[in-house]
């Protein structure tokens, strides 16, 4: 016999312990693509939601550089507010998800007076004798403050801000880093903070620290990828443009010489003109690649599409013994996509196929229905195949086996297919040839109406 259980508790019953409730709420946030601040909000909500469960109020400070900066402060602003909030929360049917949603919208509203009070404050993490709250972060210790008005270690302005007799500071830590701090109090109910509450809060602090740490890592990774791609592109453009620029510069210098014969002057101007055209071509292709935006998808007639593509490459085919055979299977008339980009993408593939075959061979451009909703267009050549050294990265920008290649053709094709909601596959064997398969959505076949 087996029994099935839900992963997440949506509502709790009387016996569900406070700890289980808190961790269940936090676990729910793992299941949703929340932002960092949203995840931290969930943790702080779990620690403060409802009377008798956890704390009354929670403050969040995040480390930024060598400072702790106030981020938000969750909780009722007064006893009256607390009473009305807690009344609402005890309404049947109001669960934690509603509380989280409420807190989220409240934090960005004008009514959130608590957050306003800490949003502009910051504490240095570099001071020789740090005071509370910075002290907990700097010493990496949990600090409980009792009788706070008489405690000289509490920074006076912070004391005025929090105004609670008793509060606990939980530093948010990663291995070597201080990432932030949570400060919790019971300013409304004035219940004493128990050891058990602190233990619970410390575990929540560890989870929050982990959230911040992984989110920082992720952000750094994205930044690194972005700057690596930028660097690669800058290097590539530099190289692509350097040859024509040097040529233009060199021939222009010659033009400056008054003794240069008339015939050479003309020749130089012609060369300069051609090189500038080449630079324009480079920029055009780069721009085309960077700007793939499929605005609207329409049904594309496959036969007409193939006709356009073969026409576009006809002059290139004319000087070689290469034939292009097109074939559209019965039962497929249109695919869904952006006609301009899909046509350009196919032309790119056929162009590559012609280049690959050098002097002679056959290119097969075919389309058929793959499943009821999907069509597949194949471009097959009899060329030498993709060298194994570049096989894994043919769709990466700036990878090319062609001498004058910019390495933007296949990445462009992939971007187009992706943007149309389709996918691309490649099959290639050295010495035998390459087949690209492009999958596009197709209108389901019209069923025969029974007579």
């Amino acid at each position, binding site marked *: 016999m087996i029994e099935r259980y839900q992963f997440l508790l949506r509502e709790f019953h009387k016996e569900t312990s406070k700890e289980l409730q808190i961790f269940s709420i936090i676990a729910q946030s793992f299941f949703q693509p929340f932002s960092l601040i949203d995840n931290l909000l969930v943790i702080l909500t779990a620690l403060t939601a409802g009377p008798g469960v956890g704390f009354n109020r929670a403050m969040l400070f995040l480390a930024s550089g060598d400072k702790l900066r106030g981020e938000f402060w969750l909780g009722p602003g007064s006893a009256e507010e607390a009473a009305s909030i807690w009344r609402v929360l005890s309404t049947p049917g109001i669960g934690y998800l509603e509380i989280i949603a409420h807190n989220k919208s409240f934090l960005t509203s004008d009514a959130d007076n608590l957050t306003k009070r800490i949003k502009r404050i910051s504490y240095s993490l570099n001071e020789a004798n740090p005071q509370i709250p910075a002290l907990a972060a700097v010493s990496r210790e949990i600090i409980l403050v009792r009788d706070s008005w008489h405690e000289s270690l509490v920074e006076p302005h912070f004391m005025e801000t929090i105004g609670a007799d008793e509060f606990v500071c939980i530093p948010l830590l990663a291995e070597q880093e201080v990432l932030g701090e949570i400060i919790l109090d019971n300013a409304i109910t004035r219940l004493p903070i128990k050891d058990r509450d602190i233990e619970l809060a410390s575990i929540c602090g560890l989870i929050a620290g982990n959230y911040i740490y992984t989110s920082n890592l992720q952000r750094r990774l994205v930044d690194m990828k972005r700057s690596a791609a930028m660097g690669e592109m800058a*290097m590539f453009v*530099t*190289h692509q443009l*350097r*040859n024509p*620029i*040097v*040529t*233009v*510069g*060199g*021939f*222009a*210098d*010659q033009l400056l010489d008054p003794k240069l014969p008339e015939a050479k002057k003309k020749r130089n101007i012609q*060369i300069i003109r*051609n*090189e500038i055209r080449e630079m324009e071509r480079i920029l055009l292709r780069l721009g085309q690649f960077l700007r793939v935006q499929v605005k609207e998808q329409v049904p594309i007639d496959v036969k007409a599409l193939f006709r356009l593509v073969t026409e576009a490459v006809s002059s290139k085919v004319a000087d070689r013994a290469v034939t292009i055979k097109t074939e559209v299977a019965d039962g497929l008339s249109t695919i869904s996509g952006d006609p301009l980009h899909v046509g350009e993408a196919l032309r790119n593939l056929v162009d590559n196929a012609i280049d690959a075959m050098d002097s002679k061979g056959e290119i097969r451009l075919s389309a058929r229905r793959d499943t009821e909703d999907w069509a597949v267009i194949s471009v097959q050549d009899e060329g030498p195949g993709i060298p194994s050294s570049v096989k894994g990265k043919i769709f990466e920008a700036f990878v090319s086996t062609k*001498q004058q290649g910019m390495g933007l053709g296949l990445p462009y094709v992939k971007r187009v297919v992706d943007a149309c909601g389709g996918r691309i596959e490649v099959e290639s064997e050295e010495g035998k040839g390459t087949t690209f398969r492009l999958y596009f959505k197709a209108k389901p076949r019209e069923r025969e109406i029974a007579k």
Partner: protein
Amino acid sequence: MRKKILLVEDEKNLCLLYKEELKEAGYNVTAVLDAESALQRIKKQTFDLIITDIRMPGKNGIDLITQVMALRKDVPIIINTAYQSYKHDFMTWAADAYVVKSSSMAELKAKIKELIG
């Protein structure tokens, strides 16, 4: 007698430009568009200096340098390329100089002068 330079540059216009400029500077220049033709020339006659690009169709400049060194160890080689980043690549150490292409040919001419006068 004029010093003989073999120039390997796959960009046609650029090749023409270098050829004219180096002739103007007093050298006897043989210009070819790829490494294979360069090798054939080297087998047939002696040059005082070889100037080569790195990225070229077919055989690249590094392969060319390796083969030239097997044939004639003593001929000085200048790499003249659009790539700045290869400069510290150990594969290019076999050459005697590394020049990044520039429309002012001062650096290239200076290196040539330094190597063969």
